[in-house]
C-alpha cells in the first residue's frame, strides 16, 4: 500500500508551507508563458504550411477549413459580391470566378466562389443562406452548382448542418443570451480568440496528429495507394493543395494530374435516393425572402459518369427542371463539349484546365443576369489555354503546390483544349 501523506501530518498542528502562493504563481506564470510560446510556434508553422496546411489558424474555425478561409476571403471584399457561387466540391473545384469576371469584363470582386464541399440542398437552405445573412454578405444572385448529387436527399450529408452549428466560430457568434455559466463563457471566449492551440485543438488531433501517426507508424502516407487508376499522392501534399484557394474562392482540384479523368467505380446514387424537393423549394423561398435571386447551374460531367448513373440522373435532372420552371428559377447550362476526359479528374470533378474551360463557358450563360445582355462585353479574344496560363500567373502558388508548370498542365497526356473551347468574346 502506498503511504498516505495525510497520515504523516500531526493532528492539530499546522506545518507551515512557506511560499505556496509564490510557487503557485510561478508555476502558473510558467504555464502561461509556455502556452504563449507554443501558440506562436504553432502559428508560424501553420504560416509555412507545416501544420494544418488546410487551415489559416489565425481564423476561427467553421466546420470545414475551406469554409473558414472562404469566409475570411469574402469578408475582405470591399463590397459584397454581386454573384456568389456555392455547391459541393464540384462547384468548389469547377468555377474560377476570376475567369468568369475576366471573360465578362467585370471586376473580380463582383463574383465569389463559396463552394463548401459535401453540400446538399438542405445544407444550402439551413446553413449556407443563413450564414450569408449572418456575416452580412447579401449578394444579388446565388448560383447553386447542381452536381448530380447536390439536389438529392442524401441524409448522411445532413450531419454537416450540425457540424456547422457545432463549430467554434458559429457557437461564438450564437452564444445563448442567457443560461450557462457566464464566467466559463468569458474564459472560453477569451481562449478561443487568443489561443490557436485552443481553438484548433480538435483539428490538430484529427487532421494533423492522427494522420501523422498513421504515416509514421503504419506508413500510410499516400492516399489511394491501392487504386491503379490514381497516381498516389502524399497526404500532406493533398492537404496543402486543399488549403489553397484564390482570392475569389476557387479551390483547384487537389488530385489534378494524378488521374486519367474518367469515372470509375460504383454508382454514387440510385433511384433509392430521391430528389429533395422539399428543401429545394424551401431554398428558393429562403433566398427570395432575403432579396437574393437563386439561379441553378448544371455542373458538367463526363460521359463515363453519365453512363453509370443514367437513367436516374437524367430523370432527376428533368424533375429538377420542372421544379425550377414552376418556381421560375433560371437554370444556367454549359454549352461546350465536355467529352475530353482531361477536363476532369474523375469524371465529375473538373481539372484545373477543365475549371477554366467551364468558367469561360459559364460566363456566357451568366452574362444576361450580370450585365443585362446576352453579348459578352469583353473585347479580349482569349482562348481557354491563355486563361489557364493567366490564372496560373495570377496564382504562382498553384505551380509550386502541384509541382507542375502550366505547360505540363496544358499538354498532359497529349490532351489539348480543342478549338471549341475558344471563348472568343464578344462574338459568342
Amino acid at each position, binding site marked *: 500500500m502506498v503511504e*498516505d501523506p495525510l497520515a*504523516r501530518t500531526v493532528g*492539530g498542528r499546522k506545518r507551515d508551507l512557506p511560499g*505556496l*502562493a509564490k510557487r503557485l504563481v510561478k508555476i502558473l506564470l510558467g504555464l502561461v508563458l509556455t502556452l504563449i510560446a507554443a501558440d506562436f510556434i504553432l502559428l508560424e508553422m501553420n504560416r509555412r504550411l507545416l501544420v494544418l496546411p488546410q487551415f489559416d489558424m489565425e481564423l476561427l474555425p467553421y466546420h470545414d477549413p475551406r469554409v473558414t478561409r472562404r469566409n475570411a476571403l469574402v469578408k475582405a471584399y470591399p463590397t459584397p459580391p454581386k454573384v456568389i457561387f456555392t455547391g459541393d466540391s464540384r462547384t468548389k473545384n469547377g468555377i474560377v470566378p476570376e475567369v468568369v469576371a475576366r471573360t465578362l469584363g467585370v471586376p473580380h470582386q463582383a463574383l465569389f466562389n463559396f463552394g463548401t464541399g459535401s453540400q446538399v440542398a438542405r445544407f444550402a437552405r439551413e446553413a449556407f443562406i443563413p450564414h450569408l445573412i449572418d456575416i452580412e454578405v447579401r449578394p444579388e444572385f446565388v448560383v447553386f452548382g447542381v452536381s448530380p448529387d447536390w439536389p438529392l436527399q442524401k441524409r448522411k450529408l445532413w450531419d454537416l448542418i450540425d457540424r456547422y452549428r457545432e463549430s467554434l466560430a458559429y457557437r461564438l457568434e450564437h452564444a445563448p443570451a442567457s443560461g450557462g455559466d457566464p*464566467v*466559463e463563457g468569458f*474564459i472560453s471566449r477569451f481562449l478561443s480568440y487568443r489561443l490557436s492551440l485552443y481553438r484548433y485543438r480538435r483539428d490538430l488531433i484529427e487532421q494533423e496528429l492522427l494522420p501523422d501517426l498513421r504515416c509514421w507508424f503504419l506508413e500510410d502516407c499516400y492516399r489511394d495507394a491501392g487504386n491503379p487508376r490514381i497516381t498516389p499522392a502524399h497526404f500532406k501534399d493533398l492537404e496543402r493543395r486543399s488549403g489553397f484557394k484564390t482570392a475569389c474562392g476557387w479551390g483547384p482540384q487537389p488530385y489534378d494530374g494524378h488521374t486519367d479523368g474518367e469515372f470509375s467505380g460504383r454508382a454514387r446514387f440510385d433511384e433509392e435516393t430521391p430528389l429533395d424537393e422539399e428543401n429545394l423549394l424551401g431554398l428558393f423561398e429562403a433566398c427570395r425572402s432575403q432579396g437574393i435571386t437563386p439561379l441553378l447551374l448544371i455542373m458538367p460531367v463526363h460521359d463515363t459518369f453519365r453512363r453509370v448513373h443514367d437513367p436516374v440522373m437524367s430523370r432527376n435532372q428533368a424533375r429538377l427542371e420542372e421544379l425550377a420552371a414552376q418556381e421560375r428559377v433560371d437554370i444556367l447550362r454549359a454549352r461546350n463539349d465536355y467529352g475530353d476526359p482531361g477536363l476532369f479528374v474523375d469524371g465529375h470533378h473538373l481539372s484545373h484546365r477543365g475549371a477554366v474551360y467551364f468558367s469561360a463557358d459559364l460566363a456566357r450563360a451568366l452574362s444576361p443576369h450580370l450585365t443585362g445582355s446576352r453579348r459578352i462585353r469583353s473585347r479580349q479574344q482569349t482562348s481557354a489555354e491563355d486563361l489557364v496560363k493567366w490564372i496560373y500567373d495570377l496564382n504562382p502558388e498553384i505551380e509550386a503546390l502541384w509541382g507542375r508548370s502550366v505547360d505540363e498542365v496544358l499538354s498532359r497526356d497529349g490532351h489539348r483544349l480543342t478549338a471549341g473551347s475558344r471563348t472568343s468574346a464578344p462574338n459568342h
Partner: protein
Amino acid sequence: MLFNSFHYILFFLLVLLVTDSVRRRRFQHAFLLLASYYFYWVSSTWFVLLLLYSSTLDFYLGRAIGNAKSLRARRIYLACSIAGNLGVLAYFKYTNFALSSLEALFGSLGFGMRLSGWEIFLPIGISFYTFQSMSYTLDIYFGKLKPVNSIGSFALYVSFFPQLVAGPIVRARHFLPQLARMPVVNWDQIRFGSTLILYGLVKKVCVADNLSGFVEAVFHGDLTQDSLLVFLGIAAFAIQIYCDFSGYTDIAIGSARVMGFRFPDNFNYPYFSRNITEFWKRWHISLSSWLRDYLYIPLGGNRKGRRRQLVNLLVTMLLGGLWHGAAWHFVLWGLYQGILLILHKVLIWRRPASGSRIWDPLKILGTFYLTCIGWLIFILPDLGKLSFYVKKMLFWDFNTAGLPALIDSHPLALFLIAAFALIHLLSYRMDRLSRRLAASRSLNWSWIMLGGLLVLYLFAGGQESFIYFQF
C-alpha cells in the same frame, strides 16, 4: 460549476491561495463557506437557500436531540429532521413522479385527470447534501456524535464545495473533527491531491465523455443490434458511468486533499468484484454504507432472522434505486439489485464460499455481466427497448461480420474500452495507480503531470456535465 471547467480551475486556485494566506481558522472556515455557497450559486442560483435551510434545520435539531432529556423528545426531534429533509427532497425530486404515477393509476381505473407536469426545478446535488445533513442528526440520535457548537462549521460541513453536488457523502463524524484543527497543507498533499485531480479529469474528460457518443449510438438507434454490439455498448456505458462518477470523486477527494481535508474513498475497483454483495461494498461506497447504517440496520439488518434480513435487503435496494432518480426504471434497477443480493445471500447460506481463488476470474466476469444487465435497466426507461436489449444479453446472436465496420466507425470508443480494461487491471494489480503516480520522485512526477495534461488536451471530449449530478 463543473469540475471539468476553466471556471473551477480558476476558482479552486483562488480558494487555495486565499485559504493558505489566511492564518486564523475561523476566517479560513468563513471564507471556505462563502466560496462553497458561491460554487453552488453558479449552478443553482437562489436554490442556495435550500442549503441554508438544511444546514440551519439540522444544526438546531441536532442540538435539540443532543440536549433532549427523554427518548420521546429525541425521537420527535429526529422525526422533524427527517421530515424536514425528506420533505424538501420529496417535493423537488419526486412530486412529478408521484403525480404522474397516480395519474396513470387513476387513468387505468377510468378516472382520467391531469395531475403531473408541474414545473419543478431539481436543484443539483440535493440528494447528496440532504443525506449528508441528515446523517448528522441521525448520528447524534444514535449516540455516535456530539452536536457541534458552531453553525458555521456545520454549514461548511454540509456545503463544502468539493463534495457538494455529487459526493462522496461525507459523514459528520469524519469531517467535523477535521474542522476542529487548522487544515494542514503541505507539498506532499498538494502533489497527492493534484495527481488525483488530474487522474479524475482524465477519467471524466478523456474516457467518459468520449464514450458517451458510442453509447448513444448503440442505445438510441433502431433495434437492429446484434449481441456483440449490445455487449460492447453496455460495457462502454459501464466504463462511462464508472469513469464519470469515480472521476468526479477523484477530483473531489483531490481538491479536498490539496486544501488539507480528507474524504473517504467512494470506489474500490467495483468491476473486480467476485459477487454482487462485494460490488456494493466497492461501488459508491459512501451511499451504500449510508443506506446500510441508516436504513438497513435500523430496519433490523440481519438481527431479526434470515427472512427478515432478505426483506430488509430488498427494501434498502428499492429505496436506493429510487434515490438515483424519480422514475420506475430506477425502482426496477433497485429491485434487480435487491434480488441479486438476496440470491447471493441464499447461495452463501446453502454453500459457503470455499476460499479458493481459482474461480475468481470467472466470478469477476459473471458479476460484471450481471452488473451490465443492471446498467441496461438503469439507462433504458422504455420497457420495450429494455426487453430487446436484455434478450440480446441473454440469448447471444453474435455477428462478427460487422466487426470491421464497427471498428472503422468507432475507433476511439473501442480503443478506450480496451485501454480502460488494461489500465484498470494494471491499477488494480498495482494497488491504486493514482497513489503510486503521486508517490513518484519529483522529477518523474512532473513528467507524469505534464503527460497527463497533454493527454487531457489531446483526448478531451466535449464538456459534458457529470451523470450523477441529476441524482
